[in-house]
């Protein structure tokens, strides 16, 4: 294959472009232009450190994502903080992305690698859709992401892990689904709810107490923001809503109608309700005030 790389002397599209068969963008690029792909770089052994960088030279890492199955589909929310060691690398990073019209990815782990993986994943799904003229199945999407995470295993072993959560509306099954991953690409279907990232321990605790089966999207958004609040309360790497700067969590709702990201005005109302509920009740005990719990 290596002889075919690069432009054809006649100026026509190289043979790799016209080979029939694969509907995978990654497979095509691996044959034609492998240097464009994330996995093609070889790093020396040992852990990564950037001399003189903030936070002891560690690359920025993204933190907490929560995903909840609701009656109409799924709700996925992520906080806005990226950290480099003990420093805040970015206050308004986005970690929840549409993968295609009916699914989304929330990322935790090394931000740079995760963002690149999401970008490739988005192209992979769109490429398949255009070449095949059909949407990829939910399982298919989850498996493609699994393969990409496994491709990053070498870097993960050097401390640059990427652990996304994949969620979406399964058009065949007619319900919202959540899939979680480990660094080796193992994929696990989650029932009801899930959280990943450094603050996930606290978020999961909150989700267990607040989740009710068959909640509406609005109730689920409220629960997601509560869970992120609890994660930010105890985990320094997770950022709470920034009322001062007007930075709200990224919240996506995926239903049969498609992916929709909530607007700032809507989120502001939810966050302010959560904050009001936590005043004098920082643990968010549901029976403590008027606003606590799931009754959004």
């Amino acid at each position, binding site marked *: 294959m290596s002889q075919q790389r690069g432009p*054809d002397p006649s*100026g*026509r599209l190289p043979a*790799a472009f*016209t080979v029939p068969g694969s509907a995978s*963008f990654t497979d095509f690029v691996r044959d034609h232009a492998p240097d464009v792909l994330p996995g093609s770089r070889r790093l020396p052994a040992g852990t990564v450190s950037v001399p003189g960088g903030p936070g002891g030279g560690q690359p920025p890492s993204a933190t907490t994502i929560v995903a909840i199955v609701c009656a109409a589909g799924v709700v996925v929310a992520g906080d806005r903080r990226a950290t480099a060691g003990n420093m805040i690398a970015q206050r308004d990073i986005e970690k929840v992305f549409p993968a295609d019209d009916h699914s989304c990815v929330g990322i935790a782990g090394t931000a740079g690698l995760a963002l690149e993986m999401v970008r490739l994943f988005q192209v992979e799904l769109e490429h398949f859709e255009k070449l095949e*003229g059909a949407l990829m199945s939910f399982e298919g999407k989850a498996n493609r992401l699994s393969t990409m995470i496994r491709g990053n295993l070498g870097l993960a072993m050097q401390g640059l892990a990427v652990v996304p959560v994949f969620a979406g509306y399964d058009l065949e099954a007619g319900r919202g689904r959540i899939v979680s991953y480990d660094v080796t690409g193992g994929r696990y279907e989650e029932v009801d709810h899930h959280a990943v990232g450094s603050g996930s321990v606290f978020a999961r605790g909150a989700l267990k107490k607040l989740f009710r089966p068959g909640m509406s999207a609005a109730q689920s958004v409220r629960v997601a923001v509560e869970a992120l609040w609890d994660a930010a309360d105890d985990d320094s790497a997770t950022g709470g809503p920034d009322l001062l700067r007007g930075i709200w969590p990224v919240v996506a709702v995926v239903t049969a109608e498609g992916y929709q990201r909530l607007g700032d005005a809507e989120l502001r109302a939810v966050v302010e309700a959560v904050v009001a509920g936590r005043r004098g009740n920082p643990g968010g005990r549901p029976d403590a005030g008027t606003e606590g719990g799931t009754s959004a």
Partner: protein
Amino acid sequence: MSMPFYVSPEQVMKDKADYARKGIARGRAVVVVAYAGGIVFASENSSRALHKISEIYDRVAFAAVGKYNEFENLRVAGVRYADLRGYSYDRSDVTARGLANAYAQTLGTIFTTESKPYEVELVVAEVGADPAADQIYRLTYDGSVADEHGFVAMGGSAEQITAKLAERWSAGLTLEEALALAVEALGSDAAAEAAGRGPRSIDPEQLEVAVLDRTRSRRLFRRLPAPVLVSLLAPATPAAGDAAD
């Protein structure tokens, strides 16, 4: 041992061109019509799976006539070209012009170096922010590129259909008007002309229609299935003049 006959290069090219032209003229036509809100593509195609009109990228679409396996091959190459470019640069760096150039080189090389030319004709179209920024490129079997304005017809009876479009098309059509014009033009083929009873009527089930709709966000390509076509074509004939969408 027999000596091969000498055939002049002019004759070789002419034979190849005639061969390709004949192949293209045998198939059903595709029309591409610009309207105020974008570009509409229409073809008579009873297949739900074998498309003549396809999405290439956010603002770029592809339409073809001729041999299916040949233009499908070019379509796949175009999607790969666009996705690779969009991934390694930015989504806004994928343009119809770049793709039309790549297709032109490919078709031109095939026409001159291979014994059998591709029997295809393509349109690569891109919608801009306003109708003035729209681009429609038409590519023929030998790799020539033409920058078209407003409308294109290609395939069988292209001459008659083009005449119809030239007579009726004007800038600023609504989607309904453009669609009605496209369907009427498709029905004004050589067979209809010979029968002398005006344009054939075409059942919406037999149409493959898609639009590049500039009012959408990001991916502007959208197929219009039969039920949508029925409602768009319903109040068809009058109501020209009001450009409100």
